[in-house]
C-alpha cells in the first residue's frame, strides 16, 4: 500500500481558515454529543409514555402503543430522517412547510428528533417488558392502598422497572450516540461528517477516521461508566443484583 502516514496532520491548519484539523474534529465531536443528548432525552420521554401505554390494561392504550412502536422501529433510521427532513415539509400546507425549511440548524433539530423518536420505540419496548416483569401483586398492592393508576406507576412500578432495564437501557444510550452519525446524510456535520471533510481536504483518510473512532469510543466509555455508576447508586440492598 502506497500511503503517506502523517499524524501531524491534526495540528495543521484546516482549509476553512479557522483553526487546525483537530479543531474541526472537536467541533464535530461536540455536535455529536449535543445531538445524542437531546435525542436521548426525547427517547426517554416518549419511550416512557409509550412504554406505560403498552402496559395498561386498556385496549385503546395498548393499540396506540403498538402502532407507535411498529411505525418507528420497522423503518430504517436513514429513511426516517429523509422523511422528516425532505418529505415532511412538502406534505405540510405550504406555509408550514416553508417555515420548517427555514428553521436555523434544521439538520440538527431533525437529527435529534428523528433519532430520538426512532430510539424511543426501543425504550418503550424495554420499559413495557420491565413493567411486565414485576410481580402482578405490586400493582395490586399499590391499588389496594388507594394509590391511583398514575401514582402507582410513579411511585411503585416505574422506579423498579427502570432499575431492572438499566443494563439494556445503557446499550440503547450507546446506540443513540452511534446513530447520530446517520445525520451526515441530511447535512449535519457532526463527528463522522467532520472526519469525512478532513479526509477530503487532506487525503489522510486513516488518520481522520482513526481519530473519529477514538472519539466515539471515548464518548461511549463515558456513557458506560456513567450508567454503571448510576446503576450502582440505585441498587437496592438485598435485592437481586443489588448485593
Amino acid at each position: 500500500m502506497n500511503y503517506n502516514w502523517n499524524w501531524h496532520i491534526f495540528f495543521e491548519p484546516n482549509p476553512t481558515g479557522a483553526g487546525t484539523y483537530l479543531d474541526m474534529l472537536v467541533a464535530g465531536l461536540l455536535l455529536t454529543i449535543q445531538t445524542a443528548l437531546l435525542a436521548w432525552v426525547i427517547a426517554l420521554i416518549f419511550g416512557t409514555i409509550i412504554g406505560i401505554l403498552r402496559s395498561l390494561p386498556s385496549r385503546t392504550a395498548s393499540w396506540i402503543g403498538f402502532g407507535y412502536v411498529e411505525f418507528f422501529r420497522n423503518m430504517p433510521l436513514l429513511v426516517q430522517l429523509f422523511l422528516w427532513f425532505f418529505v415532511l415539509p412538502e406534505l405540510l400546507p405550504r406555509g408550514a412547510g416553508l417555515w420548517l425549511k427555514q428553521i436555523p440548524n434544521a439538520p440538527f433539530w431533525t437529527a435529534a428528533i428523528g433519532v430520538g423518536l426512532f430510539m424511543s420505540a426501543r425504550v418503550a419496548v424495554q420499559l413495557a417488558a420491565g413493567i411486565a416483569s414485576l410481580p402482578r401483586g405490586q400493582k395490586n398492592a399499590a391499588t389496594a392502598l388507594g394509590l391511583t393508576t398514575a401514582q402507582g406507576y410513579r411511585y411503585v412500578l416505574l422506579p423498579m422497572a427502570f432499575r431492572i432495564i438499566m443494563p439494556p437501557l445503557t446499550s440503547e444510550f450507546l446506540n443513540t450516540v452511534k446513530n447520530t452519525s446517520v445525520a451526515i446524510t441530511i447535512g449535519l456535520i457532526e463527528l463522522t461528517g467532520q472526519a469525512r471533510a478532513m479526509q477530503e481536504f487532506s487525503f489522510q483518510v486513516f488518520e481522520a477516521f482513526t481519530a473519529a473512532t477514538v472519539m466515539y469510543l471515548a464518548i461511549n466509555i463515558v456513557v458506560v461508566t456513567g450508567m454503571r455508576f448510576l446503576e450502582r447508586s440505585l441498587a437496592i440492598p438485598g435485592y437481586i443484583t443489588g448485593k
Partner: protein
Amino acid sequence: MIEISHVNKWYGPSFQVLKDCTTSVAKGEVVVVCGPSGSGKSTLIKCVNALEPFQEGQIILDGIKVNDPKTDLPKLRARVGMVFQHFELFPHLRIIENLCLAQEKVLGRSHDEAMAKGDKLLDRVGLKAHATKYPAELSGGQQQRVAIARALAMDPIAMLFDEPTSALDPEMISEVLDVMVDLAHEGMTMMVVTHEMGFASKVAHRVIFMDKGEIVEDALKTDFFGSPRSERAQKFLSKILSH
C-alpha cells in the same frame, strides 16, 4: 360493614369463578374463608375492594356500593387494608417509607405525621429496629408484619387478608398470626382467607367454606368445626386436620 350479595364472576365467556356468592361481615366480626385451591376464595376477597371486577351482583362496603361506576374507588380502597400472600412490599423503598407512601400520597398526611404513625405501627409489630432497612433484607415473616403495619397505617375500617401465611416458612407463621390475633382481639373487622384452622378456631366468629366458586357453608365457628353440614366441608376438614 361488608355485604356481598349474589356475586357472579366469569373469566372469559364460559369459566365461572364465583357462583351466586352471598355473605356479610359485620363490624368487629372476624370471618375466615377457607376451601380447596381454585375454589374462588381469593377472587372473592379481591372483589371486596374491587381489585377484581365482577359481572353480576353487588358488594356494599360501609354503605358504599363497590361496583358502582360513580364510586371513587381509590378513596374507598384506602379505607380497607389488604394483606397479600407474597407481602408485596415495595422493594425500592425502606421499611418506614413503605409505611409512609400511601399515608402521604393518598391521605395527604404530612411527612412528620406519617413518620410518627409509621414508627408507632412498626413498634407494634415489633420491627422498629428495622425501619431504615429494605424489604429484601428482612425475613418473610418480618416482611408480612410490615405489610400488616402498612395497611394499618391507613386507619382502615376493615382488613382483608389473602392467604397471609401461605408463602411463609413454618417457623414464621406464628409471628404473623400473633399480630393478626391481637388485631382480632382489638375488635378489627377482618375477612381472612387462610388454611390456618388453629387461627380460625381461636379468633374467628364465622367460617365460610367455598368450593368450585360457591359458598357451600357459612356457619358460626362452633357449628363449622363441631358439625359441618355439607359433605364437602367435612371432607375438606378431615383432610387438612388429619395431620
